[in-house]
């Protein structure tokens, strides 16, 4: 059944369905049951399932992650929620030294069916500790799975698949995605893996990660005005990475722009380009877009420079294709930021 939902509502629906389907699913994290309910994603869950299944955590990200791992080993399917991805750095020992290795060192006898939801913060001065994306870092460790929903449909499908997966899965939800609104097919539970071609095209491949998928879609619409067909690929899963779909697209267009919601150095964009090049794909044009190589500044003018947008994707594409600069004065960029005026 298709319903028009915001991303927040889609995540909420996914939790409702999984908690109703499997009573071993519990949801917890700092401030999870407060009146804000993690930007609305937790609405109604306390009321429907009770405090044993939906509860707040002390400020103990390391211990709480270990508690989630232990509960998973003992038969529950915990969903651990963090209001910011940056807080995962406190949980790295448990995620990477404990959860990631368990299936391997038990020779498949044990598994950790843990889901971690972490928000990627952005704008109104979130600053360096409330804006990180940790998917590059966490994808690095064998044993972890990492997914990044870019739309309400993916917010629903990827979360349901993550909860059902027997492995530790980290789901990065971008703060700006929360106010996206679109039709969601509630029968689509996953897949957890695989890229999705959101818009076919023959001239240029735009690979987007997380919120940058939306920027790629806006850039593709702009480029279409001058007859450039940009194929937009949503990565969806950073680990495992579906490099084959990306290679096929880049092989078809021979021009690749990877737009990551992260720094470039040693990040997912570097991995994608490596896997395309190692796959023998011939490229006439290649570019990566991501955060500026600095901490995220709080002041608005510098924040604007920190993040690439559809404008930068368009300019990069023009350079690659030898096109004159388009008139973008009528286009609005970073439009969704106008819906969020802070504080948190």
């Amino acid at each position, binding site marked *: 059944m298709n319903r028009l939902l915001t991303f927040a509502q889609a995540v909420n629906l996914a939790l409702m369905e999984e908690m109703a389907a499997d009573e071993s699913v519990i949801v917890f994290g700092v401030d999870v049951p407060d009146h804000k309910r993690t930007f609305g994603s937790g609405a109604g869950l306390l009321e429907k399932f009770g405090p044993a299944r939906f509860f707040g955590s002390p400020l103990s990200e390391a211990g709480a992650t270990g*508690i989630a791992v232990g509960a998973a080993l003992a038969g529950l399917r915990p969903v651990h929620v963090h209001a910011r991805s940056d807080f995962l750095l406190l949980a790295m020992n448990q995620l990477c030294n404990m959860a990631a290795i368990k299936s391997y060192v038990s020779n*498949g006898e044990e598994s950790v069916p843990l889901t971690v939801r972490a928000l990627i913060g952005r704008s109104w001065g979130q600053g360096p500790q409330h804006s990180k994306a940790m998917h590059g870092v966490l994808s690095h460790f064998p044993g972890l799975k990492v997914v990044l929903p870019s739309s309400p449909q993916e917010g629903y499908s990827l979360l349901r698949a993550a909860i059902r997966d*027997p492995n530790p899965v980290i789901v990065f939800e971008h703060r700006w995605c929360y106010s996206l609104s679109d039709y969601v097919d509630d029968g689509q539970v996953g897949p957890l893996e695989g890229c999705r071609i959101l818009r076919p095209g023959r001239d240029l491949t735009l690979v987007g990660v997380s919120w940058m998928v939306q920027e790629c879609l806006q850039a593709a619409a702009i480029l279409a005005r001058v007859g450039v067909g940009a194929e937009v690929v949503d990565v969806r899963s950073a680990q495992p990475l579906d490099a084959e779909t990306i290679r096929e697209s880049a092989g078809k267009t021979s021009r690749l722009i990877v737009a990551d919601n992260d720094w470039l150095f040693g990040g997912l964009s570097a991995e994608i380009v490596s896997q395309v090049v190692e796959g023998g794909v011939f490229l006439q044009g290649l570019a990566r877009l991501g955060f500026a190589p600095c901490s995220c500044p709080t002041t608005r003018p510098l924040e604007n420079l920190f993040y690439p947008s559809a404008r930068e994707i368009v300019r990069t594409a023009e350079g690659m294709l030898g096109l004159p600069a388009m008139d973008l004065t009528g286009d609005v960029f970073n439009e969704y930021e106008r819906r969020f005026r802070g504080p948190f």
Partner: protein
Amino acid sequence: MTQDDHLRLYRTMTLIRQCQEVIIREYSSDAIKTPVHLGIGLEGISAGVCFRLPPGTKSFGQLRNHGQYLALGGELDAYFLELYGKRGGTGGGKAGSMHLASPAHGFLSTSGIVASTIPLAVGAALAHQYRNDPAPAVAMFGDAAVEEGEFWESLNFACLHQLRVVFVCEDNDLAIHTRGADRRGFDSISRAVAGFRCWTGEADGTNVLDVVALMERALYAMAVTPMPAVLVFRWTRLLEHVGPNTDWHVGYRPQPTPEALREADPVWKYEQDLTRRGLGRELAVIWAEVHDQVEGSLERAKAASYPDVGDLLAHVYADPTHLPAGRIE
């Protein structure tokens, strides 16, 4: 404790001791290519804590885990196979000494990162509370773990939710080569945790019957009123931190007198106790049975085959069609 109880307890202790002695004997053959954090002197705590755990108990430990593994009933062949890095080991050879586990006996995780399995025990206890399962969870760790933040986060959460989890501190006053006085801003672990809503107790870990008694009191108290317990058992590590040798000669701690060495040996002390009770002959029979078991298992491990390239990438991720052991279903 009936006579059978005593003999069963002794069998566990001599099994642990003889396994450690065999590893000490064999280590120089360089076939056990894994660091071994042995528990000579720890046997009273391992055997005593695990002696009467309720069915369904979930246990967690750290790198000095051999005694806990064996006391929980872990398979002997799988133990030696793992130490020798062979197929059929607890982790298929891929885990090594620091990550022994036995899900079939509720022994779910051990780790080389100090304190890192303590929150896992709390999580297991949370799962039990959620399911109205009265079985406890047990976390065993050394005294240095109390300095790690994850210990306090775990204790806090367990006390907040009044979970049935036993935090067992094996206190030998050493973190590798550094004494407690050089690590701690407090004098007593028990007093440091006293402000939390939990049961506490201390005992001499070299007297196995004292360990059994304290553990029993703690389990009884938490069976009546769900709450965590923090138990501190003192012991002396008689070997180096890792490896098969003694290291008194290095000098970070004084060489003990022969009397002090005997006082620190829980196996010797229990043998003396049971011999005084007239069980000397039974002890000898048990010792010989365990000896044969251990030597047989060792030989099988030596002869077994190694994992090969096909095993390297196996189980990086869990297979969704495989139902893992140790989970509540």
